């Protein structure tokens, strides 16, 4: 190449100096990993949640410049943001969809940790703070859509206030103290909760919740951001009608993460039981689950009872979430008839879901164990299910240039869309640009690893896919410490091919085998810093929690 970016210019040196200085801060305890190749995002859903939180913080801070939490101006100020302020529509939509994404990803994160049993290895504090974080996240999202003060927001506020009022003995006092009295107070205080109290508590808890091993995967983060914008472009959030206490509101349902609760409220059973006690019980049972779970093993397959409980909860959530959305479309019936859910029916279904979920779990475990046994009987297929696409260097440049050209085109298109008032189209395009960037970064990363990896030596058996773990590794240890990193990466797909420091082979052999969980936990103490970093990046099954 004629032109190359010098790596050691003053900026790089400055950044290195800063990086070295960070060693003296609290961050020295954290091990940040930027994966060198694609790894399943399931392992770092927490980090994605955090990234969404940061996106929400930035867009929210910008929205604060124009939003007015005053009784008669709240809705109008949101309308101004949406319709008048340049890019206000974009920021509001990103804020809205990122909030939904954050709740969704946080839920996925929780259930992934739940079924993989990660709270077992002295991660109880992480689990408990995570549950509290989840609850606060939902409250944060809830207060957010309340302060628009549309019809739907008013319904949500009235339900929140009446549920608080329904707490025995101290309910009304708690409501007065925290929500104030009257709509003016509600809007102003929900705003204070939304922009300060809750985020500050969230941040404080995150300090406790952050594990020491963090994965920051640029392509996935960009893809998530792009997906948020794309969704905002396709489903732009509406303003709702301004709340007017003299006009009958249309039928509105809360956001999807609260329709489960709403289904219970619609059963018209006692407010405190349905709206406070049931969710409280659910959260409490989640909090104590790591202390109940006494199984010695991690996998969901080896913890049938806990898995069954989790599946039951999940099934009930899914059913009630749908049920909360469902409103009888028959307009000849009275509104009350359409809205109220028969409590006997609802609770019967909830109870019925228990044996069904237990049966389902039993079946799934049987099937999984059978599949495992079958897999052991049959000889391993080459490639162990993973295929790799190896683009030649020239093609990588070509693809990158094409992607950049595509981005230039998209930039122009997005700009024209804004000029022509096609705001959601513009947002949609920006979303695609983020996705293109994700792809570009992935290609870039791939290209860099290719550059570092010289072509494999002919000592490796000439199977079409040279990723068969055991024979390939067996050939390597002949020259243990001197093996160039590229050769390692060629022969064992479980190991990143971007790590520029040579790896010691023994962990490789263990790591590539299926029983990575024991190996990674035992190695962690003995390994050097770089080694454990590599572990984090490359073995999705490794048993320490990753954000």
């Amino acid at each position, binding site marked *: 190449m004629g032109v190359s970016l010098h790596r050691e210019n003053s900026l790089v040196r400055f950044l290195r100096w800063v990086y070295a200085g960070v060693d003296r801060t609290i961050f020295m305890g954290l091990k940040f990993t930027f994966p060198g190749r694609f790894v399943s995002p399931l392992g770092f859903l927490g980090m994605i949640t955090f990234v969404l939180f940061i996106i929400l913080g930035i867009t929210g801070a910008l929205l604060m410049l124009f939003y007015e939490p005053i009784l008669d101006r709240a809705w109008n100020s949101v309308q101004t943001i949406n319709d008048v302020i340049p890019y206000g529509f974009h920021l509001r939509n990103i804020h809205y969809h990122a909030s939904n994404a954050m709740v969704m990803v946080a839920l996925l994160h929780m259930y992934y940790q739940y079924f993989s049993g990660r709270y077992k290895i002295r991660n109880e504090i992480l689990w408990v703070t995570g549950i509290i974080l989840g609850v606060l996240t939902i409250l944060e999202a809830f207060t957010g859509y309340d302060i628009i003060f549309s019809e739907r927001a008013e319904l949500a506020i009235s339900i929140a206030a*009446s549920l608080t009022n329904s707490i025995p003995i101290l309910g009304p006092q708690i409501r007065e103290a925290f929500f104030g009295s009257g709509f003016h107070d509600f809007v102003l205080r929900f705003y204070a909760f939304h922009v300060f109290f809750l985020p500050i508590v969230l941040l404080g808890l995150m300090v406790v919740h952050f594990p020491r091993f963090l994965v920051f995967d640029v392509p996935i983060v960009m893809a998530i951001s792009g997906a948020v914008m794309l969704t905002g472009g396709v489903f732009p959030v509406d303003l709702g009608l301004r709340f007017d206490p003299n006009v009958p509101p249309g039928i509105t349902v809360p956001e999807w993460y609260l329709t489960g609760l709403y289904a219970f409220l619609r059963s018209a059973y006692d407010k405190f039981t349905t709206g406070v006690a049931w969710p409280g019980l659910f959260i409490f049972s989640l909090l104590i689950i790591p202390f109940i779970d006494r199984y010695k093993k991690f996998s969901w397959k080896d913890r049938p009872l806990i898995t069954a409980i989790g599946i039951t909860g999940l099934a009930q959530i899914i059913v009630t979430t749908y049920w909360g959305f469902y409103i009888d479309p028959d307009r000849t019936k009275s509104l009350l008839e359409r809205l109220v859910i028969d409590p006997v029916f609802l609770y019967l279904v909830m109870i019925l879901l228990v044996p069904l979920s237990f049966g389902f779990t039993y079946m799934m475990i049987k099937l999984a164990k059978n599949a495992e046994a079958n897999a052991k009987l049959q000889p391993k297929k080459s490639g162990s299910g993973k295929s790799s696409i190896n683009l030649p260097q020239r093609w990588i440049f070509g693809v990158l240039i094409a992607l950049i050209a595509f981005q230039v085109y998209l930039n122009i298109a997005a700009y024209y869309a804004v000029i022509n008032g096609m705001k959601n189209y513009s947002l949609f395009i920006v979303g695609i640009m983020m996705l293109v960037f994700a792809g570009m970064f992935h290609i870039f990363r791939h290209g860099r690893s290719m550059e570092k990896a010289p072509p494999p030596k002919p000592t490796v058996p000439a199977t079409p896919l040279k990723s068969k773990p055991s024979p390939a590794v067996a050939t390597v240890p002949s020259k243990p410490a001197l093996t160039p990193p590229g050769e390692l990466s060629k022969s064992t797909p479980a190991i990143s091919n971007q790590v520029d420091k040579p790896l010691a082979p023994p962990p490789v052999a263990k790591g590539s085998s299926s029983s990575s969980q024991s190996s990674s936990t035992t190695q962690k103490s003995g390994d050097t810093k770089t080694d454990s970093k590599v572990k984090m990046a490359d073995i999705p099954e490794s048993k320490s929690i990753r954000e």
Partner: protein
Amino acid sequence: MAQPSPPGSGGNVSRRDFLKLLAAAGTVMTFAPFVDWGKFLPNPSGLLRERQKVELPDGSQASVKTFPVNHSEAVIYPKTNDPVLNKESFKVWQFIRLPVELGGDKNDVSSFRMYSQVCLHLWCLWKYWPQEGRKRGECPCHGSMYDPLTGEAFAGPASLQAPPSNVLPRLDLEIDSQGNIWVKPPNWSVNGNGIVGFGRFLT
């Protein structure tokens, strides 16, 4: 860390434990005054110690001599100098003089009622309809209906709510020698005047 208590100390509290106890007591005493600071949280605008005028929309004070029977007006209580805050639903009250059959022709306080206009169901503003055959409070949103005599919901979603959420908050009134009507200082609790948007126990 715990040192064995020195031999012959006699008491069952060691010197070290006693010291800890003193420190704990001091800490509690230091932070005790802040408990009362919790009063910062509720909005004090509703805490009124003096009687207030019933001020009709035209600015005059309601009078037992002039206010027609079987009639209602929306009254702001407690009224502020801020027009925005006066728009607050939670400050809107329905001031009713009952129809004749419910004793509205008497020239004393028993013929008047003042209920929160915030419907107990989902906080729309209900109002009193004096027409023959209605003579009741009706909410435009989901059709809750209120008995003007007691403030109890007798139809619609509000009537299905468990007490205290089926009876409207009600302010106590008094009439002075000139016949002007005043609102007595309220007691905002479910057993007193009720809580706006939540309800009141019917006593």
